[in-house]
């Protein structure tokens, strides 16, 4: 065991929230240690410009590597022939589930975490979301409202750069946007037709994405090459390694330590404080302790909860900071993927140029103005339109010179599709516990996940299909076909909850400042702190909460309260 010099702050995790904690804490004067379980990554590791012919299997994926190292991760679209290196080895990083409750836990352990592979969609929550628990009684009332978070959304947007269009929708507040990306000719047509058909209640807009449409804060604008999930040498989409960690580094107060698997948060019962963390060096397997005045857990929802459960002690026998008994409960993900697709006749004289790293978004329209369906809350829809190009050739009749020419010159018809991203109700039965037997490569007890879709989610999935088909038909599509989703929990990679925020200490793990009720110098600012899931992609909300918590923590330290 080696003890290292004390830091002002320790941040566990270097992804979306870890990077924000590092930036805010260092810029506010704290000497900050960021611990990342995985190896370093630089832009030399990015492979977004590798062409199919430069891949052995032309993008199909190396079956031996994927079957051997990534039997679970490979189910994620981004864990492919080139991108699999940004996903964990499933054998080194096991987790368990009940046999009848599959869960997909897609993880990236490297500096930058999943901010390298994320989908980049960013949507503010509204009071429709922050008030939902209180109004329908599922979950606990959030101790914050939109007005508390709005300035921090703006703070985040100004730094990361968000492209989007102003729509004036109360359920999807506008942000401080960079210029929007273009909708396709078909999407513009569909937007107008859907607005007219549904009395303006269903609004299709261009996706709001953390991708630069012009140079911003020293980063270059997007060059529309396509596969963002393999990295970006120009850092044109937001990632911690392209934006927040460099900002933290520039302060001179950042220490970044890769290959540092945090095994335990160390509790000092004499002061009811945490004094630091115990790390297992991923390469030497040696234990190292680091001390800090304040600790931020930003390891992702499941990892942070797992770490708290693994940090139980005499004072907290059921997990650190768990006097409420809610640690590991009310776990959520978005249920997604049900929707419809159709052919859009015409527009054959139009095409797209460039690969747009973004799609369209249909703002939530269910249970917004009135309670209207056989389910609570609602969903947004994401999708897009395209022409198939040569990819249609395998199922298209024909052969010979004319066939070849048509695949080269004609792009095929337009298709328009969309799928729902639905809110999951907070439910005490959806849990993270520790597996009593299984441990990871470093001997740390693995997470056991029991998360299930229930009646409300299933009813919403049905409606996603019906409503989407209605919209596509109203837009003028033909051959409209619905598709249901069989994605299990976790597949959306929006896992949330497990250390929820609450108004009182007996109903949650953290207070309105993401500060543990039981341990005042411990902050949990990743998805674990979420008390509900809304239906919007959650990352920008995590970022806003993290920046807000960091400011609070530093102010409290300066006041001598921490």
């Amino acid at each position, binding site marked *: 065991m080696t003890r290292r010099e004390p830091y002002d702050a320790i941040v566990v995790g270097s992804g979306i929230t870890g990077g924000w904690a590092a930036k805010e804490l260092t810029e506010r004067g704290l000497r900050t240690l960021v611990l990342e379980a995985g190896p370093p990554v630089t832009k030399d590791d990015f*492979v977004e410009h590798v*062409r199919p012919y430069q891949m052995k299997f032309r993008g199909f994926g190396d079956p031996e590597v994927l079957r051997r190292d990534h039997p679970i991760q490979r189910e994620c679209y981004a864990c492919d022939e080139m991108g699999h290196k940004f996903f964990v080895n499933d054998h080194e990083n096991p987790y368990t589930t009940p046999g009848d409750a599959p869960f997909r836990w897609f993880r990236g352990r490297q500096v930058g975490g999943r901010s390298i592979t994320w989908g980049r969609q960013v949507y503010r929550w509204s009071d429709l979301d922050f008030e939902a628990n209180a109004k329908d009684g599922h979950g606990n009332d959030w101790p914050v409202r939109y007005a508390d978070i709005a300035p921090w959304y703006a703070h985040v947007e100004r730094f990361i750069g968000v492209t989007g269009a102003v729509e004036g929708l109360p359920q999807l507040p506008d942000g401080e946007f960079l210029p929007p*990306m273009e909708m396709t000719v078909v999407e513009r047509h569909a937007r107008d037709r859907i607005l007219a058909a549904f009395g303006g209640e269903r609004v299709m807009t261009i996706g709001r994405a953390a991708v630069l449409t012009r140079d911003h804060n020293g980063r270059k604008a997007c060059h529309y*090459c396509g596969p963002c999930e393999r990295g970006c040498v120009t850092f044109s989409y937001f990632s911690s390694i392209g934006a927040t960690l460099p900002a933290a580094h520039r302060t001179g107060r950042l220490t970044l330590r890769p290959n540092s698997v945090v095994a335990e948060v160390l509790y000092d019962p004499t002061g009811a404080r945490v004094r630091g963390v115990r790390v297992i060096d991923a390469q030497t397997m040696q234990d190292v302790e680091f001390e800090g005045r304040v600790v931020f857990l930003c390891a992702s929802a499941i990892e942070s909860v797992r770490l708290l459960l693994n940090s139980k002690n005499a004072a907290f026998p059921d997990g650190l900071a768990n006097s409420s008994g809610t640690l590991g409960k009310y776990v959520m993900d978005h249920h997604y993927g049900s929707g419809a697709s159709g052919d859009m006749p015409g527009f*054959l004289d139009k095409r*797209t*140029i460039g*690969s747009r790293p973004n799609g369209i978004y249909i703002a939530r329209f269910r249970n917004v103005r009135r309670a209207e369906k056989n389910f609570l809350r609602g969903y947004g829809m994401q999708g897009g339109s395209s022409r198939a190009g040569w990819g249609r050739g395998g199922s298209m009749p024909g*052969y010979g010179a004319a066939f070849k020419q048509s695949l080269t*010159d004609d792009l095929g018809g337009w298709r328009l599709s969309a799928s729902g991203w639905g809110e999951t109700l907070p439910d005490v039965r959806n849990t993270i516990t520790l597996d009593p037997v299984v441990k990871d490569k470093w001997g740390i007890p693995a997470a056991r996940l029991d998360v299930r879709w229930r009646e409300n989610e299933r009813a919403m999935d049905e409606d996603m299909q019906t409503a989407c088909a209605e919209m596509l038909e109203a837009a003028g599509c033909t051959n409209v076909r619905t598709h249901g989703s069989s994605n299990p929990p976790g597949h959306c990679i929006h896992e949330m909850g497990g250390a929820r925020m609450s108004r009182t200490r007996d109903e949650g793990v953290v207070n309105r400042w993401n500060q543990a009720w039981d341990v005042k110098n411990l902050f949990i600012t990743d998805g674990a702190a979420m008390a509900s899931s809304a239906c919007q992609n959650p990352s920008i909300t995590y970022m806003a909460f993290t920046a807000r918590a960091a400011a609070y923590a530093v102010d409290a330290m300066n006041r001598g309260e921490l």
Partner: protein
Amino acid sequence: MNRRDLLRAAGATAAISLVPRAAEAAWARIASGYRGTAGLTPAQRALVAGVADVILPRTDTPSATDVGVTEWVDLIVAEYDTDDVRVPFLAGLDALDAQVRAERGRAFGDLDANAQREIVGGLDDAMTLGNRGGRGQAAGSTLTPELQVRAARAAYRRLKGLVIHGYFTSQRVEREVLRVRTSFPTFQGAAEHRPGAAR
């Protein structure tokens, strides 16, 4: 939004230094004539090459075999497919070969161009009409004539997909035919469509 489509649509200006070493080595082996033991037999290779060039013949642009599609199919069979996919596919190719020899008295590659197009046309019509065929049987088994036909059609359906993917993802076609780009000043959602313009 189909994120896989983005991968296919990505551009062509990658520095050669970014070529993954494993892929570079694999393609060098293939170029030197190396073939895995689980790949296509000489008869199957000849059949694949012949059918591929009927589907995508040489015109003012390269043919399927001009850009290495036979080697691509061989690689997929040898190193990508699992047995449950590989075995019926190869059985289907064998069934097609046997059918052609039985009906025409010679191998596909020895037939004249009209006869080759007639055979591929029949297979393509069957695919289009929705007769996707069965999954075939293990190589070496005795197929009834009806099963032979179904196995051959199933193999053709898969082969056509592989041929098209291999062709349009080849370096030469990306550069000379599709003229793929990887960098754009902006995204245009309603550009005029001009056949043959750079992608």
